[in-house]
């Protein structure tokens, strides 16, 4: 829980940290990128500046050539007019043309005319005597240009002209190239560029900066392999591109710098754009991150939800399993109660006792129906519920319903009137049992919640298609009604409305919910109109397939007239020649079945195990076998499979008896080869119907009339009260609760005594079998035996032993259950070993007590 509450904050923190790391990473990348881009840009700029420098070099050379041409003319003129040489020199030197000094040298480099020239500082000057034009730069002197004075192929002298540093730029006009480009002309191998000056210009400052000097040294070395080059330099004076170019036709070299901004100033906008793009990407990333974070949170939430659902699903399954288990536990005693009660109703004539028995019967049935409701609900909940469609008669359905409801309604003094459409088709296709359940549920509610007045039951076809009918069951009562705000809740599970007022009305509150769900499964619907305090009208609409369109006829009339009385039990058939084998490990159950079938005069054999059953089947051919499912050793299914291989058992119908009422059990049994399925507690009517279906028809005889039965009961055993009184006077009976035992045995003393005798007699054998299973750790059989002991002990009134046996049974089941962990199994086995002895002691004591009691009451 703590973890879950912290979760979102820690997530946010985590995301924040991750985002921070991302931003820092991006920042580092950005810095790196900026560095890289600057570097690339500067490299590109260097190339551009280098090319521009080359252009400047060309320009300079062209200027030199122009000057050389002038000198050539002068030289030619001198050659032609040697006597006018001085005038020519003057004209060259005249301020109007150019300034600077000029002169003529001999081929030996001696002074001939004009200005004096320090010949030795111009190493290229000798080239002039080979007839070449000379452009030579000497540091401190300036730029010298010289041409040969020719006489045919022979050089007679050299005409030269010298420009000082200032004049170079002034006259060669290179400063026009671009005002941002600052440069000087120098000798190729020159080192120092700017001498010390008293008032250095800005340009001088740049040139004398140490890092600029280093840059020029780099340029010098690069010029070995290039005509022009440029490099980017950062210095104290600012950022510059330094450039240099050698002039190929002379020893001159250009050196200069241009401020970075002048070349690449506008390019800094790139950074702004990159910054914008980067910011935008970062923003996108943030948006995506937030989105992903949200998605992740949602995913985690849904994970949590799924886990919760899994937990609740498991709980729900456990609930279903528990309910199924419970139903088994509850049905077993109800089986006895209803069975014995049935016997009372059949055999007792005294009206007051019959009335009590009928009350027991009603209560038992109510209990059963509650359990069935719960079971149905758990089946529907777990999705195991299936609608099984088959052909059925609507008339039969309605008869069943009416037979069930009418007595209850009349008991409460309500008028129950039927309105059944005579044209309704009789034979339909559908799940009759479920429809019946729904209709009974609604009608039962009507009876329950109507203290006074009447109940009208309408059945008609709301709509009819070719082979489909929309059946409408309408139940209208004058009951307490339902408040409007409660009507919506009505079909929800476990809802019981008006709790205060209806406290005395029994029920689970599941009925309508189940009906609603069943209708949903069958494609029908249920609706309600109600006025609180005046009454309710429930309408069920249900589509059904028509099988046979024969009208149902005036059913309502017939049934309305029929007076239903609580008649003495009359068996629906007798079959004195039919042989039936009943197999059950529980002697009590055998007694119940035998008792229920007493009036049918069947010849009934019983046996206590599958093995015994097979023995019997070898010797004798039975007309029908009733086979319990859960038995020690061979269970019912196994027994059936083995029995089917016996020649005597060929064609013999096997009916399974089981308390296992969980969903799908019936289908499973039928698929194994059983012809029918009877759930415990056994409904005597169903039992008789089943027998009538599967017994050979020639052995069936019509049942006796009520009078015959009554006559047959004359001189029956003494009524219960007398015996009970006798029992009450009995002395201490130890663990044996005679009263309880008598209750479970339907109050029949001789039956109880027989049961007790059997219990005492079977004890040693059972105990040794249990011990054998325990030693062999044969947990399934052990659990089955303890299960039987539990029921038997309960039935004879040995509650203590029953409880102890139940604990052992559960532990035994745990020992072999698939979903038990090995630790649980270990623990359960330990429990059995430590408690088995105690339980056996209880068993002995109970048997001793029973034996003693039997001896004491031997005569009674």
């Amino acid at each position, binding site marked *: 829980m703590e973890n879950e509450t912290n979760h979102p904050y820690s997530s946010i923190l985590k995301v924040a940290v991750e985002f921070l790391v991302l931003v820092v990473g991006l920042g580092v990348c950005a810095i790196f990128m900026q560095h890289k881009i600057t570097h690339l840009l500067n490299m590109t700029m260097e190339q551009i500046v280098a090319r521009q420098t080359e252009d400047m070099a060309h320009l300079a050379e062209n200027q030199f050539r122009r000057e050389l041409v002038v000198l050539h003319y002068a030289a030619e003129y001198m050659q032609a007019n040697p006597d006018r040489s001085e005038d020519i020199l003057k004209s060259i030197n005249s301020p109007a043309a150019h300034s600077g000094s000029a002169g003529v040298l001999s081929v030996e480099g001696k002074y001939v005319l004009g200005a004096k020239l320090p010949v030795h500082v111009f190493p290229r000057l000798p080239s002039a005597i*080979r007839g070449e034009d000379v452009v030579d730069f000497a540091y401190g002197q300036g730029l010298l240009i010289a041409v040969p004075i020719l006489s045919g192929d*022979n050089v007679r002298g050299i005409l030269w002209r010298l420009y000082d540093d200032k004049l170079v730029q002034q006259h060669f006009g290179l400063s026009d190239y671009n005002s941002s480009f600052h440069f000087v002309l120098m000798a190729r191998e020159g080192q120092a560029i700017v001498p010390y000056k008293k008032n250095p210009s800005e340009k001088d400052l740049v040139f004398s900066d140490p890092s600029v000097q280093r840059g020029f040294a780099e340029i010098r070395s690069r010029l070995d392999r290039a005509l022009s080059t440029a490099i980017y330099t950062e210095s104290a004076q600012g950022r510059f591109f330094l450039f240099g170019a050698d002039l190929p036709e002379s020893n001159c070299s250009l050196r200069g710098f241009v401020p970075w901004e002048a070349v690449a100033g506008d390019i800094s906008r790139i950074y702004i754009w990159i910054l914008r793009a980067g910011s935008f990407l970062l923003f996108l990333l943030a948006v995506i991150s937030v989105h992903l974070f949200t998605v992740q949170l949602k995913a985690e939430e849904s994970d949590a939800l799924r886990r919760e659902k899994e937990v609740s699903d498991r709980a729900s399954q456990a609930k279903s399993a528990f309910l199924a288990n419970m139903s088994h536990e509850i049905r077993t005693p109800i089986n006895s109660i209803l069975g014995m009660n049935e016997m009372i109703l059949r055999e007792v004539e005294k009206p007051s006792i019959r009335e009590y028995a009928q009350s027991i019967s009603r209560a038992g049935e109510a209990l059963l129906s509650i359990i069935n409701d719960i079971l149905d609900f758990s089946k529907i909940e777990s999705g195991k519920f299936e609608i099984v469609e088959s052909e059925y008669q609507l008339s039969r359905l309605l008869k069943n319903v009416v037979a069930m409801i009418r007595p209850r309604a009349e008991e409460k003094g309500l008028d129950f009137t039927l309105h059944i459409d005579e044209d309704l088709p009789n034979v339909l296709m559908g799940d009759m049992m479920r429809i019946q359940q729904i209709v009974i549920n609604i009608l039962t509610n009507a009876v329950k919640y109507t203290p006074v007045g009447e109940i009208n039951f309408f059945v008609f076809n709301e709509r009819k298609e070719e082979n489909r009918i929309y059946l409408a069951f309408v139940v209208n009562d004058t009951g307490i009604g339902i408040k409007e705000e409660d009507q919506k809740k009505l079909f929800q599970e476990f809802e019981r409305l008006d709790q205060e007022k209806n406290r005395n009305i029994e029920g689970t509150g599941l009925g309508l919910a189940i009906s609603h769900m069943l209708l949903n499964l069958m494609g029908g619907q249920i609706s309600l109109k109600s006025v609180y305090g005046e009454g309710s009208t429930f309408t069920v609409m249900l589509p059904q397939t028509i099988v046979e369109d024969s009208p149902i006829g005036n059913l309502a009339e017939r049934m309305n007239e029929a007076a239903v009385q609580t008649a003495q039990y009359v068996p629906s058939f007798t079959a004195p020649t039919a042989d039936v084998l009943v197999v059950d490990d529980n002697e009590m159950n055998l007694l119940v079945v035998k008792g229920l079938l007493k009036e049918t005069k069947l010849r009934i054999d019983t046996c206590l195990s599958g093995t015994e059953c097979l023995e019997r089947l070898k010797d004798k051919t039975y007309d029908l076998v009733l086979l319990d499912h859960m038995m020690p050793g061979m269970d019912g299914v196994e027994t059936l499979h083995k029995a089917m291989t016996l020649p005597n058992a060929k064609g013999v119908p096997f009916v399974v008896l089981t308390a296992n009422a969980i969903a799908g059990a019936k289908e499973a049994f039928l698929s194994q080869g059983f012809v029918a399925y009877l759930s415990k507690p056994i409904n005597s009517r169903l039992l008789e119907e089943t027998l009538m279906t599967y017994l050979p028809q020639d052995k069936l005889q019509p049942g006796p009339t009520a009078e015959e039965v009554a006559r047959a009961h004359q001189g029956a055993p003494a009524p219960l009260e007398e015996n009970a009184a006798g029992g009450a006077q009995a002395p201490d009976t130890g663990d044996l609760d005679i009263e309880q035992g008598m209750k479970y045995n339907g109050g029949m003393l001789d039956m109880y005594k027989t049961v007790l005798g059997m219990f005492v007699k079977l004890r040693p054998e059972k105990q040794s079998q249990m011990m054998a299973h325990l030693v062999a750790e044969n947990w399934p059989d052990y659990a089955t035996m303890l299960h039987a002991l539990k029921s038997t002990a309960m039935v004879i009134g040995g509650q203590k032993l029953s409880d102890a046996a139940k604990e052992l049974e559960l532990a035994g089941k745990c020992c072999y259950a698939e979903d038990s962990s090995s630790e649980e199994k270990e623990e359960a086995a330990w429990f059995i070993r430590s408690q088995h002895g105690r339980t056996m002691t209880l068993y002995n004591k109970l048997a001793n007590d029973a034996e003693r009691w039997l001896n004491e009451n031997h005569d009674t």
Partner: protein
Amino acid sequence: MMKYLRAIPDWGRWLIAFLLFLLAIGIFGVFAFAPTQTPRTVKVGLVLPYSMDASEQCGVHYEGMKQACEDFDVELLVRESKNAQEYRQAAHDLAKEGVGLIFLCGNPRPSTVDDAISENPKVTFATMTSGINAANVTTCLVRMYQGRYLAGALAAMQTKTDVIGYVAAMQNPEVTREINAFALGARRLNPKVRVIVAWTNAWKNEEKETENVRRLVKEAGADIVTYHQDDQSVHRAASALGVDYIGYQVRQADMPEHSLGSVVCRWDIYYRAIIDHYLKGDLNKIKTRWIGIEDGAVWLSDVPDRIEYLTGYFVVRLRRELDHGRPIFKGPIRDTAGNLRIADGEVLRDTALTTRMDWFAEGVEFLGK
């Protein structure tokens, strides 16, 4: 997918994130630091007019070029040829192989190489012969005549008969200017010396050369001979006759008995200068380049110790003059007919050396038929 991610423990996820981070850095780094341009290897091509086996001169050029390329650490591709057709093809092939500088060795006719030059305007061509004109061709000439000048001076000091024999193939500006320079050098130190030229009319003709040497010695009275031929037949002929000789283009490092040294070119220096200009990018900026004794490329080599000290002194003095730029063809110079070809105070300009050198200087004579 998510399921598997969930299955990874927390530290594993951090590890994976870290590894991804490293990977990203790595990829980024590779892109960031990968050279954007792979530096192009500089290739220099050399086309030889003969195979190196057939021509000793070709081998000498190859060795010089190889040395220069090694000094600059550039790749050298060499193509030998046997005839003009192969020579042309070789020039084309080298251009196709991405060679930036092609040196056309020997004396190819312009028609042989014109198309290779014009079809590859971005390739720099260099030749050692004038007459091929294109924007991307430069003629690189050697002032061998400076070496001849020194050789003439040496021979003039050594000769007893004042007659020096000169076996030469045929008259062209190159041969003529070298004969003139030889004669000028000789007469500078010994104005009595006569240089007798004996033509062979062939660059290689052992028989004729041997015959010429014999005649120069026996008929003209020469006691020292030199030559301008493609082979060294003169060495053998002179040695056989017991006269001294001065070699040409071939070292005499083993100091044969009659050798007075050799006029040689340091081709490695020559090629180094060419490659240097090529690498700088200004080789073709000038159409004709000269390389000479002042560059260390021309040399009078392997002068034997037996020459007199004074002789050596004078030769060295002359060489120093040349080193300082003294022109050899400096007036007054008269031709064989006594005409003043170059007046006092005048110097012959370089262009005339290759074009109008059709006269012989005073002191040059010819061996009669």
